[in-house]
């Protein structure tokens, strides 16, 4: 089922622009403010994705676990 799979190939539109936006969002923030922003961003994106199976794969991918099974 394709929609149940996390996309791990390049999928960003204008990747460099997105990365610059991400850095800009953190500019002039303290470490605590940046941590809070990252946390809010994770929650906003997670809600957009919605599907638990994909989010589990994303958590495993972010943990740099190898292999398909997020267990």
């Amino acid at each position, binding site marked *: 089922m394709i929609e149940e799979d996390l996309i791990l190939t390049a999928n960003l539109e204008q990747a460099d622009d997105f990365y610059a936006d991400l850095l800009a969002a953190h500019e002039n923030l303290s470490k605590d403010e940046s*941590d*809070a922003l990252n*946390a*809010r961003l*994770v*929650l*906003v994106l997670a*809600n957009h994705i919605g599907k638990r199976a994909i989010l589990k794969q994303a958590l495993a991918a972010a943990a740099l676990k190898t292999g398909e099974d997020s267990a």
Partner: protein
Amino acid sequence: MNKIFEVPLYPYARHADQDAPAPVRRKVVVIGAGPIGLAAAIDLAQQGTEVVILDDNDKVSFGSRAICFAKRPLEILDRLGCGQPMVDKGVQWNVGKVFFDDRQVYEFNLLPEEGHKRPAFINLQQYYFEEYLVNRVRELQEQGAPIEIRGRNKVSAIGTHPHHVTLEVDTPEGPYNLEAEWLIACDGAGSPTRQMLGLDFVGRVFEDNFLIADVIMEADFPTERWFWFDPPFNKGQSALLHKQPDGVWRIDLQLGWDIDKEREKRPENVIPRLQAMLGEDVKFELEWVSIYTFQCRRMEQFRHGRVLFAGDAAHQVSPFGARGANSGLQDTDNLCWKLQLVMDGKAPESLLDSYDIERIHGADENILNSSRSTDFITPKSEMSRVLRDAVLDLSEQYEFARPLVNSGRLSVPCTYDGSPLNSADALDGPERTRPGSSCPDAPLGDGFLLDKLGDKFVLLTIDADAPDVIEEEGIEVTRLALSIKDDKTLALQERYLGKLESGVYLIRPDQHVAARRPSYDDNQFRHAIRRAIGKE
């Protein structure tokens, strides 16, 4: 001021058992006249079983204690003949407000599902709850039911035997011996019964203290639930304000684990905290203050031969979600019909092992939910606090974050998925009424479905044929024949049929679904009945 909890409700009176030359053997003895012990005794007495409740006290609970009673327990109380006074007295609310730090982040309306006789929940002080249960005991006694409460009867020793239990009971006039065929221990989180039998109580997932205060206010606060995360008047902790009957407000302030309880309880320390919470101008009177300590844990088994544990004696959870007394009532709801069948010789003793399986499933669900609430309310690491605060900050602006805010997931009935009493689901119907589920209510003209189910095995047919009575292994199952035409609101159809035209449900005496099929099949339903009483 309300002094209901200072008047003896079941004062000590000498009983003939104390003068008997040899210990008298009673059918069932219940230890503890709290909400759970009283409910168990009423349930059995309604079936005509002799039951004696022993309590070391003679009064209702001191202070409000358990205050939130959910729909399923109210439905159980209807079956026990005392739901109405609770609902009449209780406070109903639908609006809740969530505060974070010094501001309100959002407000919600529960908008409970229509088509149920009982509300999602009511707030009612435990002392009223117990008083109404005792009133029901008195009513049953007047009708000749063999039920009695013995106040100031403290069990000091218990002996277990294959076919009975022996008890040593202390009274103001000295000790006596008593025997019971079955013993139900509902003696609370500190259960002396559990300790006397040297039984485990494992878990300790979480520990915390709460300052609990009943306050009488002159201010006209709305009937809403207010919950604070990390408020200025209780930094790093939570606070809850809930309305109870008689203009009494319940305030719960989380204190953390490592505190000086005696110091925290002193009025000179309590009053400034409450004043900061309620506002400097608000005049209030403290009715009751207590420190409540909890741990999340349960016994490994609730059944130990002829001794059965229920309520807090068997399992303890955090107060978030009101899963204490509410789950205890579901324990006795599950236990009493099984015990009755075993005592009547209609079911094997092993049926009682399904009490263990089903209610441990319930206890684990409650511990999981209340632990998650606790993790949200009291973050255990720096990053879990960052994430928690992110949820709360987002919830102020975006609706999507609000379901993540966890100030307690309110007690809902446990579905006994995988129970050995269930038959395989043979109906492609709604999830919520699969085998193991507690039956959702539905309006039927001028009445409600659950009142018609009662407390015996029922064969519910919706637009399907079946015999009016089936008898199997001494169990009489009566048909309740309904049509979707009986309910103009379509709740019956939506909850029991979904897209199907007909359905037949075998429903247990505790109003949980044992089996369901699109039509009546004699052989299959006889199997299902045997299975539901532990004979298959």
